[in-house]
C-alpha cells in the first residue's frame, strides 16, 4: 500500500483516541490526526481548540491556525483562551491531546522554544543565554502538558530531535523521571506515548523513561535506535505496528484534503 511516514504517524496517533473522550488538538499535523480519529473510529470524540472553538470540523483544508476561518466555519460555540486552555485543559478535565515538538528527551520533556549553540543550554551554563535559533515557544502545549489527563507527542524521528536531555523544557514531561512531576502538583498525568515517523515509544511505568514498544512495517528496531540520541531501551514485546488499513487511509485523506501529510516521504 502506498502511504507516507507522516501518514503512518498520523494514523498511529489517531488510533490512540477513544470514542467519547474530551480532546484538544494542536495546530497543523496533530489536528489532522485528531480529526482523522473522529472520522474513522471515534465519532463522539469531543474536540475543541485552545481558543475555545467548539464542535467544528475543518472546512476547505488544513486550518492555518487554531483560530482560522477553516475551523470556525461550523462551530457551535466560540469562547476564549481562559475557558479552553484554563477551565478545560489546565484544570485537568481533558482526557487526551496531541502536541508536536522540535526536540524531546527520554523522559518526554518537550522543547519548542529554541536551539542553543553546543554547550550553551541554560541548564548547562546556569543562565539564560539567547538561543542561536528562536523557535515558537510553548503556545498552549504547556497547559496540555501540565493539565491533560494524558497526551501524545507527535514527532518526526530524527537523531537531532531525540536527545538525552532537551536544551530547554517548554512543556514538562516526566522531568528527571520517576515521580518528579509530583513536586509541582500538576493536575495532569503526563505523556502516554511518543508517536514518531519511525515507531511508538511509551514510558516505563516506574522510571518513566521512554522505551520502544513498536515500529512500522517500513522501519526497524535498528533504524529507530540509530535515530535516537539516547541509549534507547526496547520493550521485550516490541512489535510491528499494523500498517494503515484502506479505510484508515481513506478517512485520513478525507480530512487531509490539501495533502499536508503526503508532501514528505
Amino acid at each position, binding site marked *: 500500500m502506498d502511504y507516507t511516514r507522516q501518514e503512518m504517524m498520523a494514523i498511529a496517533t489517531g488510533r490512540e483516541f477513544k470514542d467519547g473522550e474530551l480532546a484538544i488538538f494542536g495546530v497543523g499535523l496533530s489536528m489532522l490526526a485528531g480529526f482523522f480519529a473522529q472520522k474513522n473510529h471515534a465519532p463522539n470524540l469531543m474536540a475543541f481548540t*485552545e481558543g475555545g*472553538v467548539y464542535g467544528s470540523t475543518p472546512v476547505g483544508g488544513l486550518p492555518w491556525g487554531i*483560530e*482560522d476561518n477553516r475551523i470556525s466555519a461550523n462551530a457551535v460555540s466560540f469562547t476564549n483562551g*481562559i475557558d479552553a486552555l484554563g477551565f478545560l485543559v489546565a484544570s485537568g478535565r481533558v482526557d487526551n491531546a496531541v502536541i508536536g515538538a522540535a526536540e524531546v528527551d527520554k523522559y518526554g520533556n518537550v522543547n519548542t522554544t529554541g536551539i542553543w549553540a553546543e554547550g550553551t543550554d541554560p541548564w548547562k551554563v546556569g543562565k539564560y543565554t*539567547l538561543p542561536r535559533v528562536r523557535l515558537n515557544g*510553548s503556545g498552549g502545549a504547556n497547559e496540555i502538558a501540565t*493539565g491533560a489527563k494524558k497526551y501524545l507527542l507527535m514527532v518526526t524521528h530524527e537523531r537531532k530531535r531525540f536527545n538525552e536531555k532537551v536544551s530547554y523544557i517548554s512543556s514538562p514531561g516526566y*522531568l528527571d523521571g520517576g515521580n518528579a512531576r509530583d513536586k*509541582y502538583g500538576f493536575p495532569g498525568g503526563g505523556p502516554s506515548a511518543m508517536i514518531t515517523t519511525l515507531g511508538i515509544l511509551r514510558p516505563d511505568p516506574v522510571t518513566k523513561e521512554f522505551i520502544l514498544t513498536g515500529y512500522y512495517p517500513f522501519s526497524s528496531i535498528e533504524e529507530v535506535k540509530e535515530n535516537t540520541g539516547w541509549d534507547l531501551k526496547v520493550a521485550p514485546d516490541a512489535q510491528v505496528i499494523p500498517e494503515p488499513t484502506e479505510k484508515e487511509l481513506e478517512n485520513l485523506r478525507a480530512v487531509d484534503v490539501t495533502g499536508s501529510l503526503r508532501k514528505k516521504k
Partner: protein
Amino acid sequence: MNKSKLITMKEAVEKYTYDGMYFGHGGSLPVGSDCVSFFREMVKAGIKDIDCASGCNTQGTNLLAAVGGIKRIELGFSGLEVYGFANGLKRAVETGKTILEDYSNGAMPIRMMAGALNWPFVPTFMNTGCDQQWASADDPENYPNTKKIPEITDPFTGKTCGAFTPIKPDVAAIHVTMADIYGNAIMLGTEWNRFELSRCSKKVILVADKIVDTGVMRQYPNLVRIPYIVTDAVVYAPYGVWPACSTGLYDSDEEHMFYMNKMLKTEEGTNEYLEKFGQYGDVWDYVNMIGQERIDKITNTDTAFLMDPYRQWIKTDAEIKELLERR
C-alpha cells in the same frame, strides 16, 4: 453613553500611543483576530521601545519587531502557526534587539485577568516545573529563576505552586468585528484574550472592521462582551486584520501572509515591504492599497453567513465619513 468616541486611526495613534508604553493587543492571534493595521499605523508614526503584552505573535508584532520598535515582549507563542516562524520577530530576538520573555498561551489571559481584578498575583500550575519558570530573559543570570514565577505555598494545603504577576497595560488596541460609535463591541470567532485585555488596560482603543448602529447591541446584549464603559476610542478599520483573517468577514490572505513574512526576514526586505504597504494615507487609501482583487478573494469566506444577523445595522462608508465630520 451619548458621546461619540469614533476617531481616525491616525488620531488614535497620535493621541494614545507613545514611545516606551506598555502595550496590549487583542486578540493577538497569529492567523486570526488582531489589530494589525493599528501596528502599521504605529510603524508609520515611528513609535518605538514598546513593551508588549501579547497572547501570541501576529503580523502586527512581526512587523513592529522587524523595524526595531519592540524593546520587550511577553507572549505565549512567537510564530505564525502553519505559516511558519515569524521572521521579523525571530530576527529581532536572535540579534538581541527584542527581549522575549516566554510564557504560555494560557498564562497570558490568566495574568490579564489578575490585572483586571487588581490582584497582587495569581496562583498557577501552568508554566511551573519547566524552563518557562526557570529561565528569564529579563533576569538571565538568575537560573533557575526565583523571581519570574516564584514558588509559593498554598496557605490551605501547604503544597507548592507558582505565582504569576498581573498584566496592566498602559494602552490596549483591540480588534473587534463590529463596534458602535460609543464603544460597545461584538466579536465573532474566538475572543482569545480580548475580554480580559479590555478590563486590565488603562486605555482601550477598539479597532473595528465594521461600525454598526447601537440597535444591534440592544438586540444582542449578551454578545456585547466589551461595553462602552471600558472603551476610550473607536477606530473604523476595514480589513484591519489583513493579511490574517476576521471571522465572518474575510479569510487569511495566504499569498500575502507568506510574502510579508518573507520580506520581514531582512532589514532590506522590511524596507521594501514598507515602501509598498506602509505608505498609504487614511483608511480608504489603505483599502485601495489592498486592492479589489485581493478583497474579492478573501471575502469569499465560508464564515460569511455568521454576519447575516447583523447586516441591517452596518454603517456605510458615507455614513462613517459623516459621523467623523460631524464631531
